[in-house]
């Protein structure tokens, strides 16, 4: 299992479309992808859990991946959530 702390940098937080992007990304991998946020464990492969997580721009969270392709998943998902290019809307 691997994990990493990230700060959310998506302009509207994880709502609707950014959430859908994240879930789509998570589902490409076979490993489990969990977001630890405010003591909640959120399954990143389930859109409803992600939406109800109430994750906002600027929130800190831990991405946790567990499974065969965990390293690749962790990198891709963290870079999406923390989005250094900033222009991503």
């Amino acid at each position, binding site marked *: 299992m691997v994990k990493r702390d990230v*700060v959310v940098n998506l302009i509207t937080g994880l709502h609707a479309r950014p959430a859908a992007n994240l879930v789509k990304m998570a589902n490409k991998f076979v490993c489990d992808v969990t977001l630890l946020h405010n003591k909640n464990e959120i399954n990143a492969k389930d859109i409803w859990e992600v939406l109800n997580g109430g994750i906002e721009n*600027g929130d800190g969270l831990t991405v946790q991946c567990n499974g065969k392709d965990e390293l690749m998943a962790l990198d891709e998902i963290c870079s999406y959530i923390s989005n250094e290019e900033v222009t991503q809307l």
Partner: protein
Amino acid sequence: MKYIGVGISGGKALGRAIVFGHEKIARSNNKAIKPEAEIKKVSFAITALIGEYNTIIDKGIENSEIVSLAEAYKMMISSPSLCEEIKDLIKGKKYDAVSAVEQVFNSKEKELSLLGTAYARERAVDINSIKKTIIRKMLGIKDDDWSNIDYDFILVSKEVTPSMLLSVNHKHIKGIVSEVGSKTSHVTIIAKSIGIPVVFNVEEVHRIIKNNEILYIDGSEGIIINDIDSESLKTFKEEIEKYDALCSNLKEMLEKQAKTKDHKNYEVAANVGEATDLERVININADGVGLFRTEFLYLNRDNPPSEEMQFNICRSFATALADKKVIIRTIDIGRDKKAPFIDIPPESNPFLGYRAIRYCLDNRDIFKTQLRAILRASKYGNVMIMYPLISSIDEVRNANAILREVMAELDEEAIFYNKEIKIGIMVEVPSVAVMADLFIDEVDFFSIGTNDLVQYTMAVDRTNSKVKELYDPFNPAVIRLIKKTIDSKKDGKFVGLCGEMAADPRYIIILVGLGLDEFSVNVNSVLKVKKYISLLNYEECKRIVDHILTLKTGVKVESYLDSYAKEAFNKYLDL
């Protein structure tokens, strides 16, 4: 008949009305006799809807907003956990298909509403709209099929839902009218990205407008007109043609600087009030952000926004706009637009009361958090800070003292920020304008807020219909205050103006003549203002201003400018 609402997205269009009805869905609340059959009903409906979303996604519609919304919706209804919850209700509690779907979606909707942020509340609207679509499918309610409409139409409904937008032919949608709507909804976002006019707040519109009748919509004015005779139809068509031609004409201004015929340069920046405005500011190639209203970060939520969130949003703008200005106005809230977590007791006169900088100087925690976020973002671009509703020198000094405290804290934590960050104030209270020559020593820039300046100068509440005639931006007193403010500029400092006046062609003549440095207007008006400036001559505008200063009444000023504007701007006046 003309109906007045609120314009949400600009433009003019004609089309046949398609009125979405909102009949109550009648159904019995039966227990499921055969759970298997009920489960099948649900999966049929969901599969059918997934198919519809797939069609939208596969069609490769040019509009990416629509496609990504369809993708998000598809993901929501194909979620395994959702299906399990519905099945459990049918099997375990013997719910019928409709009740089970309703129950599950209602609880999802409720969970989201409870998150207490504006965005989450909007998503609750999305969920409600998906729920209704599924239920109608299960009940076999045949919605009229709008997906193959091959004529231009205007969508009319009590509330236009994203699902409705997904179910119509996007090539021919020319406008949207409704009674209920919000400017942060998916409907608004999509409409703006297609570039069609939207008018909300038209009362009872779904009853007034008949299916198939021809409708005229003007999203800039916020009006719709029906019962159109052949003569006015012709006029409207001509108007739209003219308008469209002018708009495409305006595109040439995208890459051009705002420059008068005699080569004096002006900046035309954008006003911003939503995080998602950034893309539009970039697309229109504005000269930065002249007014970043930060209230959206505070309103419609139950707790204060985190420093990180504010920082991220400010940084997004700073980075994306590189060396262009991003002027961030600190919180401008008061009793009239208060946030749930900010406790301002009722006042008999909120516009003269406890608000904006007055509140911030007293509530340092909220103010300091905001200043920290802005300062941290300042290292990523050309960020400036602007205090609203300043009325005395002491307030500027007190605000700056707090700012210095925050800077010292950041220094201590070894957090970088721009130590030379420019600090300015809104000039919207006459006490500042008349003393602008002294205020300028305290700040790096002024930004004139005309809406409030007119209100406070004339002592008139423009929402009060009995006195609103007195609200006159052309009143010579107002013009003199603006002149005084601009004339006080010195030492490489600058003066901007944000407010409706900066986009009024007649006022632009005055402002060009007075030598204003920066116009800050709504994103939609940026190109228009650039165009107007390019049609003027600075030296001539100076002479016009000289003449105007001899006039004693607002009416005289306005009519003088009217006739000059007709001559100078000609056909562009229709914009």
